[in-house]
């Protein structure tokens, strides 16, 4: 069994990823809806739309980095 401290660290790391993932999801939802709307008007915008949609994914990367830092600090 792991001790409670390690468990809390794990929860902290999970929160970092989960929070940023939810945030990125919300942002991508908005962008995705707008991108599909733009594509309905002009199909050539597919490339730009797809690209803009993945922009908020940086948030999750930050979350991951923070999670690794949290785990790193705990050791």
């Amino acid at each position, binding site marked *: 069994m792991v001790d409670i401290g390690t468990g809390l660290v794990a929860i902290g790391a999970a929160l970092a990823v989960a929070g940023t993932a939810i945030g990125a999801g919300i942002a991508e939802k908005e962008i995705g809806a707008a991108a599909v709307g733009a594509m309905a008007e002009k199909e050539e915008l597919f490339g730009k739309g797809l690209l803009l949609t*993945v922009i908020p*994914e940086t948030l*999750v990367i930050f979350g991951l980095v923070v999670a*690794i830092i949290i785990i*790193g*600090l705990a050791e």
Partner: protein
Amino acid sequence: MRPEEMLQVTLLCRKQDASQVVKILADLKAIHITDHQKESVGNAVIDIGKPFAQAEELSAALVATRNLLSKIPAAESSTPSAESSLQHRVARVREIALRYAEHESISSTLRQELGQVEQQLDLLALLDDEHIESFSARSVETVLLKRNKDAPTINAMRVKQTSPDTFLITVKHGEPTEFPGCERIDLTPIAHLKGSATALRKELRMRHTVILHGIDEQEQMLKSFSEHHQFLAESEPLFTFELLMAQAPLHFGATERITLIRGFIPKREAHKVQERLDGIMTLIDLAEVQDAPVALHNPEPASGFEALIKLYTLPKYHELDPTTLMAFTFPIFFGFMLGDIGYGFSVLTLALILHRYSVTRPFGSILGLSAVATILFGVVYGEFFGAEQVLGFHLSPLLHRVEQFDIMFTIALGIGLFHINLGLILGTINRARAGIMHALAEKGSWLLVELGMLATASALGILNALTIITYDAPWSVAIALLAAGAIGLLWSEEEHGVLKARGIIEMPMMFSNLMSYMRLVAVGLASVYLALVVNSMASGMFDKGGLWLAFGIFVLLLGHALNLALGLLGPFLHSLRLHYVEFFTKFYEGGGKPYRPFGAMEGT
């Protein structure tokens, strides 16, 4: 590294030669014509040219062709129509359109009549054997009523039930024709008919059959037009092209005697153009330019990446064209993320298929290079569809990316530093035209900011925690670097003694830009873990044996197909994003006008 070099040309020819010149220019496919603006030279006015005589006829033919193509289905088997002259084609299209319209009009008249007859038949069916002309007697009014089931009995001069729920009522003129629970049926459509309902029904049924037959005949006729589909489909692009030729003078300048054409030609083709136009056209001006339409010119297979540049925005004429650089960095990023021998060969197969077709060829080149990088990184990571063992052969990884991800992060950060600084250097070159000192100061300041950010990260212990660099820089160094960078930015953006703070506001961007390269590791880890999960699930099933074997194979195929799809999309988009967002923002302005040579059209 630069867009195609262009020369500005001004051409002059006699008006009667104009149509011949247009043909030559269209054939050359080299000149990008710029629209002429009405101008006066001395007391002569150079107006915008008028289209050639055949333009009107051609545009009518084109409209008719497109209209017919939208209505006529393609024939099941088609043979290419015989070569024929343009005049011949225009005449034939006109004749086809006329005949088609005729049949269409007959068909629509028949359909209208069919509707009427059907309506009349419906009404007559409700009238048993009544005589229609008796309805319009002078003193009385005859009304057909539809009675609801539970309506009260109808009280009138004469009431006759003509069908299960309709009643024919005769009332005196002026008396109410409304009865509770009853609905009046309009008899106008049959009011003009004469004779008994039975006889009329018989007559109309015959007419109905005749009309249906007529409509069928017309439909057959209209369908038979599909034999012309091939001819029309061939004529459409031809007409489009010829119309473009005929309307070309709208872009030219013209006086009563001469035609003036201005535009741009690639420097490489200048000689060829001069030779072809010799004798018929005078080249009165050939000049080096500051601004011109942009044509990208890169060697194969890097040219495939031009599609990605166009997707973002074309560079301005005087800007650097990053296509060739991207052809190096993009596949490296892609391979760094996907890095798997098995997936690499799968992507390579896809790339070879895409490369066969002209539409998808650029993506074939991009994926091909990326696949090669993926295989190379796969060898480094020692991965084959996520597994380290292939048929008992152990792939010994040079770098184990799951266990040694701290090294991976260090490499990713290094790649980020390299990439961003490359962008800054390119930016200095782009800006050098406006003043080398300012350009150096601005990009140099960003370099200081970058170092400052690294020092800050180190001081905060982030780098240490990521086990990238186990050295914690003192805060004083971080602050000093950041301050120096900020001052440099302020100085480099100063205009006419006014300080601008845009650079300072954007300083934190450098930090997030650098951190963004961590995705190179993160996306890859996600892909590896998914592959590992699929493999362990499948091997669990293989151990059970029997029918589980089939399930295992199914899981293996489905799982890796899914992971490959994700592995294509993820690394591709993230690699692209690192270029567009992190790299291009350091130097790239874009917004160039595309070079569109006259006469070059899709499909011709």
